[in-house]
């Protein structure tokens, strides 16, 4: 049943990947957008099913695809895999809240499909199917047949296949590759929208369930190695069938079925990723005849400013952080303290993505592991909190090492998908264990204390968190200057050359991953003690994707970026909800998504851009006011 919808969605994904080498993380967001339109038109405004379907699936879907192509994807074709990934992650974060902002964000548990509110029941070969199910089968079959015919036998199909093989060559023989790739994005979004409307009667009409549903079709795209539409189609059906069988054969209650059934697609994805990585088959490489991918230009801030300027910045930052709370009331100190706890987790992105150059979507899971371990050790076994947090970090390390050992050999995109499936598996299985989750109540946690000196006041805890942040930031700064830091820079630049000067690429990446898991684990434990609660579902994979977007917005390369990102997330949300209507809170998420898209090319993030502008301004005024000096700005 689900298999048919997975198939439609997976075919759309693979088609756009083939034509532009962009894996659209936001495929599910588009599905959600179109399904919401359909619901709005059909259910709320009372349009007929046909009219609503034509407008939402037939017009809005492709239009969204074309618009995204025009403003974003068109420019990304030759970017590095990391930039592509971060950009579509930004869309993933931005589109659903934007949709909710327009159509309202109340919970919709039951949305009708194309068969209307009360689908007829039909008997087919002795199986009872409702009309929705029949329509899904019909639609999947039609998509398969029509695409096969178009790609095989028409001029358009020939052009698409040409662009897939080599964009540059196709352009040389006169194909308009832009028009072709625009068309594939329109088709891809149309298919996403179709899948979105078809799946509406089966799952909740909510951003979360749509994201998870489409990630399940990522599994099919992985099976197809992003190449074969036939395999994508078959793989999707396979995932659907396995899921269907699990309903039959697993007991209907208990951890087994509740945890395992939803995670089947992610398990399938993980298995195929490992299989392909051991066979040494990477996803198809970008156009060999094309220009070399344009990477983000990493510049290192130290060195282009004299020491006293940097020193002043650090001192000013430290002064604000140390004295700032004196100006705030207790409520805001609490908010800011939570921000610092988040910032500590965000430092793990600074290490794994900023230094290691890897996109990891499971940092939040390491934080969850840290939180759970802290709660178990401290609350259930009576360990001192501080020790429990530290050990929580240590327990997260082997998790990080395990993921890294399985996944770092994969290319950038597959590494992202592997870490995502790891995070979702943890969400569905480990994080649901009764002892950890307490049926959604979580485990109570105290804050640490030194003798009779407790950190129960948010102000004291703020300073403790700040101290931990400073220590970890210092460790990262040391790392960057050390031989390991040089090795990481080398791996980011050229893996081949790194290997042939005698540095193991895998070991270097493993180091970064493991250290980042330690930081995330510590941060997760601290965040849980800040909240007095370790609730595993606070550390779910989808929130982790939002976190990545936030950190990218503010700067993935420096601890300052992590700090500002950590503070910005709760502070901006609080400011908006204090001063504006509640639904405007949705727009902050949209803002972070757009921020990630806009700044994907600038790894130093917003902070660096602003610093640059400030320096530019300062330089200008110096030039105006002071006599020009001979000192060079080398």
């Amino acid at each position: 049943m689900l298999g048919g919808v997975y198939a439609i969605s997976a075919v759309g994904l693979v088609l756009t990947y083939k034509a532009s080498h962009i894996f659209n993380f936001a495929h599910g967001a588009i599905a959600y957008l179109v399904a919401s339109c359909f619901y709005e038109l059909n259910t709320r405004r009372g349009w007929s099913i046909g009219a609503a379907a034509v407008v939402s699936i037939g017009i809005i879907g492709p239009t969204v695809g074309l618009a995204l192509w025009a403003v974003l994807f068109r420019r990304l074709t030759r970017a590095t895999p990391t930039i592509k990934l971060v950009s579509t992650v930004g869309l993933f974060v931005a589109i659903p809240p934007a949709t909710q902002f327009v159509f309202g964000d109340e919970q919709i548990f039951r949305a009708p499909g194309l068969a209307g509110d009360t689908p007829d029941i039909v008997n087919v070969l002795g199986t009872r199917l409702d009309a929705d199910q029949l329509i899904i089968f019909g639609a999947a079959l039609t998509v398969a047949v029509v695409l096969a015919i178009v790609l095989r036998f028409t001029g358009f199909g020939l052009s698409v296949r040409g662009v897939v093989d080599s964009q540059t060559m196709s352009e040389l023989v006169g194909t308009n590759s832009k028009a072709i790739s625009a068309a594939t994005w329109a088709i891809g979004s149309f298919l996403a929208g179709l899948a979105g409307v078809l799946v509406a009667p089966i799952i909740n009409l909510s951003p979360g369930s749509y994201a998870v549903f489409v990630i399940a079709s990522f599994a099919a795209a992985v099976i197809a190695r992003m190449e074969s539409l036939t395999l994508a189609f078959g793989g999707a059906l396979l995932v659907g069938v396995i899921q269907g069988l699990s309903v039959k054969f697993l007991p209907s209650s208990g951890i087994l079925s509740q945890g395992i059934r939803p995670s089947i697609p992610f398990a399938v994805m993980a298995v195929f990723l490992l299989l392909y990585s051991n066979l040494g088959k990477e996803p198809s490489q970008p156009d060999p005849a094309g220009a070399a991918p344009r990477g983000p230009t990493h510049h290192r801030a130290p060195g282009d400013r004299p020491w006293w300027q940097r020193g002043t910045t650090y001192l000013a930052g430290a002064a604000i952080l140390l004295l700032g709370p004196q100006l705030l009331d207790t409520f805001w100190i609490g908010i800011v303290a939570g921000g610092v706890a988040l910032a500590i987790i965000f430092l793990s992105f600074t290490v794994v993505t900023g230094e290691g150059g890897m996109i990891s979507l499971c940092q939040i899971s390491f934080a969850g592991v840290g939180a759970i371990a802290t709660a178990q050790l401290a609350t259930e076994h009576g360990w001192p909190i501080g020790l429990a947090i530290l050990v929580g970090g240590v327990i997260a390390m082997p998790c990080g090492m395990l993921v890294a050992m399985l996944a770092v050999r994969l290319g950038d995109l597959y590494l992202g998908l592997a870490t995502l499936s790891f995070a979702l598996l943890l969400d569905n299985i480990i994080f649901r264990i009764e002892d950890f989750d307490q049926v959604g109540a979580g485990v109570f946690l105290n804050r640490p204390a030194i003798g009779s000196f407790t950190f129960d006041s948010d102000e004291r805890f703020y300073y403790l968190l700040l101290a931990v942040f400073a220590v970890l930031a210092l460790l990262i700064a040391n790392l960057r200057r050390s031989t390991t830091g040089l090795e990481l820079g080398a791996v980011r630049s050229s893996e081949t050359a790194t290997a042939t000067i005698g540095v193991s690429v895998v070991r270097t990446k493993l180091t970064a991953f493991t250290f980042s898991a330690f930081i995330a684990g510590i941060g997760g434990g601290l965040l849980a003690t800040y909240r007095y609660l370790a609730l595993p579902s606070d550390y779910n994979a989808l929130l982790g994707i939002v976190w990545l977007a936030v950190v990218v917005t503010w700067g993935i390369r420096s601890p300052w970026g992590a700090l500002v990102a950590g503070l910005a997330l709760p502070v901006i949300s609080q400011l908006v909800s204090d001063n504006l209507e509640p639904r405007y809170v949705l727009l902050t998420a949209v803002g972070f998504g757009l921020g990630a898209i806009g700044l994907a090319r600038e790894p130093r993030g917003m902070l660096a851009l602003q610093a640059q502008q400030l320096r530019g301004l300062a330089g200008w005024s110096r030039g105006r006011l002071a006599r020009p000096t001979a000192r060079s700005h080398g």
Partner: protein
Amino acid sequence: MSADPVATPAVSAPAAPALAVSAVTVRFGGLTALDAIDLDVAPATTVGLVGPNGAGKTTLFNVMSGLLAPDEGTVSLAGRDVNRLSPPARARRGLARTYQRSELFSELTVRENLVLAYRARRRRHHLTLDLLGLGRHHDAQEDATVDGLLDSLRLGDVAGQLADALPLGTGRLVEVGRALAADPDVVLLDEPSAGLDEHETELLADALRRARLGSTVAFLLVEHDVDLVLGLSDHVYVLDFGRCIASGAPDAIRSDPAVRAAYLGTEVES
């Protein structure tokens, strides 16, 4: 700067070749890219490898450095079979190389490119020490080696710049510097002079000669600049369509009719 010709090595004992390749065959599908290649590089010599485009030179380099596993044959370093060793393990046994298309560490400075190559072979480091900032002892020998190389390649002015925006010729010299910084026993040079102007080529040749002074480092040199190869090499192999069609002293190669027909004739005249 001593000007003595280094073409006559003073090593008397016939030690195992620094690098040896025997019967290496590589097939890509139906195409035989390398066909039973045998090649020796003795310590303290420069061996040239010439051949038209597509002759298999870069493929052979990739087999030697461990990036590509041969279908048949063995690679050995100083008499030890390294077929099963990874590229980093081979590098730590003294094999270094440069690339035809720049593979510099663009996110590191020029100096850091060399420093890392130096440390990769010599210094054990540990993450915990690195995190605590204790991993950096001042190392006079490291500074001397790296700065000496930067100086001789005239890279002192760009030492502090990131290696991503260098002019082509400068980038080539950095590649060579990085290879030499590891104090290697064998260096594979993949068209090091491509894109260099005359002055830079002279610097390069000079740096290679100097590297050989008082050292047993050996070079295997792939070049299109035939005069450069024949001028620097003690021994030359000629590849064509994956086969070794001739080998011998530079003068013998220059007059070999098969070589002239396959390659040199057209090159020399053009």
